[in-house]
């Protein structure tokens, strides 16, 4: 089965049709997807601002990351669940949509960015807290995350205008 065929099949599954046919399920899931933005993306952006030296400057980076990640994990769990359900109901239309494709590429970039940060910088955060200096590479990770998350929001909002 082609990828497009799979998307069209997904749209016809009982779960997807139940969501599309219900008067209140789609708005509820879509609303939840948007209301989870502050808890997921918003908190990650707070940490990006710390890496860039734009907020929380006189606190510990490592502790801030712990505080932020504990709550944003919950936000992202809601995001991916509701996002997956929304995709199911409109998978065929989403497949060919340029903004949806850009959003997926952006999300992959953000995942890789997080992996790079974790592999290279995560274990050294205590050192920067002592020196007060965030390395250039970590600042770049923060800048990339900040900009690309804004791109994800723009793509997510704009794709809905094309359905």
């Amino acid at each position, binding site marked *: 089965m082609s990828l497009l065929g799979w998307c069209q099949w997904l749209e016809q599954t009982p779960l997807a049709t139940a969501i599309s046919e219900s008067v209140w399920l789609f708005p509820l899931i879509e609303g939840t997807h*948007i209301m989870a933005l*502050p808890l997921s993306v918003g908190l990650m952006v707070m940490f990006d601002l710390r890496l860039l030296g734009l907020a929380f400057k006189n606190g510990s980076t490592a502790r801030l990351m712990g505080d932020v990640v504990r709550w944003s994990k919950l936000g992202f769990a809601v995001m991916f669940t509701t996002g997956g359900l929304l995709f199911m109901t409109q998978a065929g239309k989403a497949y060919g949509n340029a903004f949806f494709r850009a959003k997926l590429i952006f999300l992959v970039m953000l995942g890789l960015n997080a992996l790079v940060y974790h592999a290279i910088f995560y274990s050294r955060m205590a050192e920067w807290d002592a020196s007060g200096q965030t390395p250039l590479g970590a600042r770049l990770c923060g800048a990339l995350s900040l900009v690309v998350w804004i791109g994800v929001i723009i793509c997510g909002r704009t794709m809905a205008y094309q359905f």
Partner: protein
Amino acid sequence: MTSLLLWISNARWMVYIRDSSFGMPALQSVHLVGLTMLLATMLVLNLRLAGLTMMDWSLPSLERQLRPWALGAIAMVIASGIIMFLGNPAKYLASYPFLFKMTALSLAILFQVRVLRRLPVAEAGSRPRRTDVVVAALALTLWFAVGWAGRAIAFV
């Protein structure tokens, strides 16, 4: 007042924003990025008030860190919101979710400012009192009610 609103909603620049293919998505995107930042600052502040995160920050110092971002974000949502409203004032004034949203927004801002005034009480590491938890829960309920009401404008 009505004729002024009508005049603005029919002005050439407004028609251009409203009817071009990118005008509304662009405004909505600004509105959503602002919402994300604004509600994230309110989450951090109120979760701290409830003693659930950021315990190595005192409330006043946390509030100082968040203030420029909260003010910038509220400027983004209000500016983009006003332009969207002016594009179709009759639709919004007739919408119950919109009227509810404006009421909840006014209450949320008033309530949050009241909360901020009491901030010096809590120091870094201090445990929240029961009233702090109630105040934080009420503030967040109000802020998220604004967001839900906004989403409901499109559906009701």
